[in-house]
C-alpha cells in the first residue's frame, strides 16, 4: 500500500513538472515573440505562416523606430517655475526612454526616502493620532488607485503640473504601500537599542540614521526595486497625465505608435522590445530583493 502510494505520487509529481515546464514555455513565449519579431523582415511578419525562428535577422524595424519622430534628449523643467533645460535632438523613442528612466529613478528615490522616515515613525514613535493614520493608510491601499485619477488630473492642471513628468511621479510617491512595507521591517528594531541611544543623548535624527536605517536597509532595497518596476509599467497614470510627444514615457509612446500604425507589427515589436527589455534586465539583476518586497508586504496584509 505504502509503496504504491509513493510510486503514484512520484508519477504525479513528474507529470506535473512536465506540464509546468510546458506552461512556463508558453508564459515566456510572448517575450520571445516580441524580441524575435523586432528583428524579422516585413515579409516574414506579414506572412500567414509564422516563422518560429527568424530566417533572416534585420535591423529595419529599429531603424524605422528611430527615424520616426525626433525630440530633444532632455528638457528638464523645474516644477512651479517654468524654467526648462533642453538637450540635443534625438529620436523620440530615446527621449521616451530617458523620461521613463528619470521618472522611475526619481519616484524610487522620493518613495524610499519618505517611506523610510514615515514607516519608522509609525512603527517606533508612540505619537498621538498614530493609529488613525495607520488605518487611513491601510484603507487607502485597498482602494483602486485608478478611481482617484479624475480628481488627480484636475488637481495637476490647477498646479500647472499637467503634462509634466512630475504629475506621474508625485502620486506614485504618495501611494502608501511603501510606508506599510517599511513599517513591517521597522517593527523589528529592538526597543532597547533606541532607549540606549536616547539615554546617550542622541538626537531623534541621529537615532534614525545610525540605528533605524541600517536595520531597515533590506526593506528599503526591496521597496526601491518594487517602486522602480511598478512606476515603469504604470501605464494608466502616464496615459492620463502626459499629452505631448516629448513628455511621453516609453510605454505611452509605444501605445500611441500602435494606435497610429496598428498593422506594422515589426515596428511595434521593436518599440515593445525597447520598453520591456531594460526593465526585465533590472528585474533579473535585483530579483532577490524584489521577491522579498512582495512577500514582506503580504506578511500582515
Amino acid at each position, binding site marked *: 500500500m505504502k509503496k504504491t502510494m509513493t510510486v503514484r505520487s512520484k508519477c504525479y509529481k513528474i507529470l506535473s513538472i512536465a506540464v509546468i515546464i510546458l506552461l512556463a514555455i508558453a508564459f515566456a513565449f510572448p517575450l520571445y515573440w516580441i524580441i524575435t519579431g523586432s528583428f524579422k523582415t516585413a515579409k516574414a511578419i506579414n506572412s500567414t505562416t509564422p516563422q518560429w525562428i527568424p530566417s533572416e535577422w534585420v535591423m529595419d524595424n529599429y531603424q524605422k523606430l528611430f527615424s520616426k519622430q525626433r525630440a530633444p534628449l532632455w528638457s528638464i523643467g523645474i516644477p512651479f517655475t517654468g524654467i526648462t533645460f533642453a538637450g540635443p535632438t534625438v529620436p523620440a523613442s530615446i527621449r521616451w526612454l530617458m523620461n521613463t528612466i528619470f521618472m522611475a529613478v526619481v519616484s524610487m528615490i522620493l518613495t524610499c526616502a519618505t517611506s523610510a522616515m514615515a514607516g519608522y515613525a509609525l512603527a517606533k514613535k508612540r505619537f498621538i493620532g498614530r493609529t488613525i493614520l495607520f488605518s487611513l493608510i491601510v484603507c487607502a491601499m485597498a482602494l483602486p488607485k485608478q478611481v482617484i485619477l479624475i480628481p488627480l488630473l484636475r488637481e495637476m492642471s490647477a498646479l500647472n503640473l499637467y503634462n509634466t513628468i512630475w504629475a506621474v511621479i508625485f502620486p506614485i510617491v504618495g501611494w502608501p504601500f511603501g510606508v506599510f512595507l517599511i513599517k513591517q521591517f521597522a517593527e523589528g528594531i529592538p526597543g532597547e537599542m533606541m532607549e540606549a541611544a536616547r539615554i546617550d543623548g542622541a538626537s531623534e535624527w541621529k537615532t534614525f540614521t545610525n540605528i533605524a536605517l541600517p536595520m531597515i536597509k533590506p526593506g528599503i532595497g526591496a521597496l526601491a526595486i518594487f517602486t522602480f518596476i511598478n512606476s515603469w509599467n504604470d501605464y494608466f497614470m502616464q496615459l492620463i497625465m502626459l499629452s505631448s510627444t516629448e513628455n511621453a514615457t516609453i510605454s505611452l509612446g509605444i501605445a500611441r505608435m500602435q494606435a497610429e500604425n496598428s498593422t506594422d507589427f515589426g515596428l511595434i515589436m521593436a518599440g515593445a522590445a525597447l520598453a520591456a527589455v531594460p526593465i526585465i534586465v533590472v528585474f533579473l539583476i535585483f*530579483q532577490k530583493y524584489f521577491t522579498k518586497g512582495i512577500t514582506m508586504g503580504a506578511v500582515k496584509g
Partner: protein
Amino acid sequence: MAGKAKKTTGYSMSRALVRRETIAGYAFMLPNLVFFVGFVIYPMIQCVITSFFDSTMNRADIFVGLGNYIELFQDGVFLRALWNTIIIVVVSVPVTCIFSLWVSSIIYDLKGPFCSLLRCVFYLPVVTGSVAVAVVWKWMYNNYYGIFNYVGKGLGLIDKNINWLGDERFALGCIILILLTTSVGQPIVLYVSALNNVDASLVEAAEVDGANRMQCFWRIKWPQIMPTTLYILVITTINSFQCFALIQLLTSGGPNHSTDTIMYYIYHTAFKLYRYGYGNAMGVVLAIIIAVLSAAQFKMAQSD
C-alpha cells in the same frame, strides 16, 4: 489614545516624553504626509464630492445630488460594463488562485535553481509591462498574421480564421486569458514562500501517523497558508477589477460593448466625453464594491 503608555524599563511615559514623541513622529511623517494627503487623500475626497455634481471642463460644477448615481443604474452601457467586470473577476480570481497554488505546491521543494527559475518565468509577463504584453498579444490574435489562427488550424481545432478580438463571442475570453498570464506571477511568489515556511515538524509528524499526501496538504499545510490565500484573494480581486490597459489597447471596449469594463468606461466617460462628475460616481461605486468584497473575504477567512 495618547501614546498608549509604552512600557519601558524604569519609567512610564511622562507628558514631556509624549510631546517629544509626537513632535518627532510628525516630523518624520511630514514628507510622506505631504504626498499622501496631497495626492491620495485629497483626490479621494474630491472624487466623492464631485460625484454629486454635473462637472465638466471649462464651466462651473452644477450640483445634481444623487442624479449621477440614479443615471448610472439606468445606463445600459454601465450595467453591461459592470456585468463584464463581474465575469472577469468571477473567472480570473479562482483560476489565478487555484493555478498558482497548484504550480507552487509542485515547484516549492524542487532542488537547485529550478524553483526560482520557474518563479521568474511566471513573473515575466508582469515585468514586461501591460503595453508590451498587449501589443504582442494583439499580433498573436490577429486575423491574418496571428499564430492563434495558424496553430488552431494546424491542430484542426478551427477550420477557418477567427477574428478573435473582433468577435463578440470571443473578445472577453481573449482578454481574460491575457489577464490570467499577467496575474499569476505574484501569487506564485507568495505561495512558494508561504509553503517553504510551513512548519516541517508538523508535516513529518502527520506522515509518521500515516497521513497521505492529500490529508497532509489539506489538514496541515492549508491552514498555515490561509493568510497568504486571503491576501492573494484580495489583491487578485482588486487587480481584476482594474483591468484597463489591455482593454484600452486591444478592443476599446468593443465589439458592441462586449469588453467594456467599469475601469474602461470611467476612462471613456471622463477623458473622452469629459463628464467628470459621472465618471467619479462610477469610481465611488467601484470603490464601494471592492471594499465590500474585501471585507467579505476577510470575514470568510476569519470564520474558517
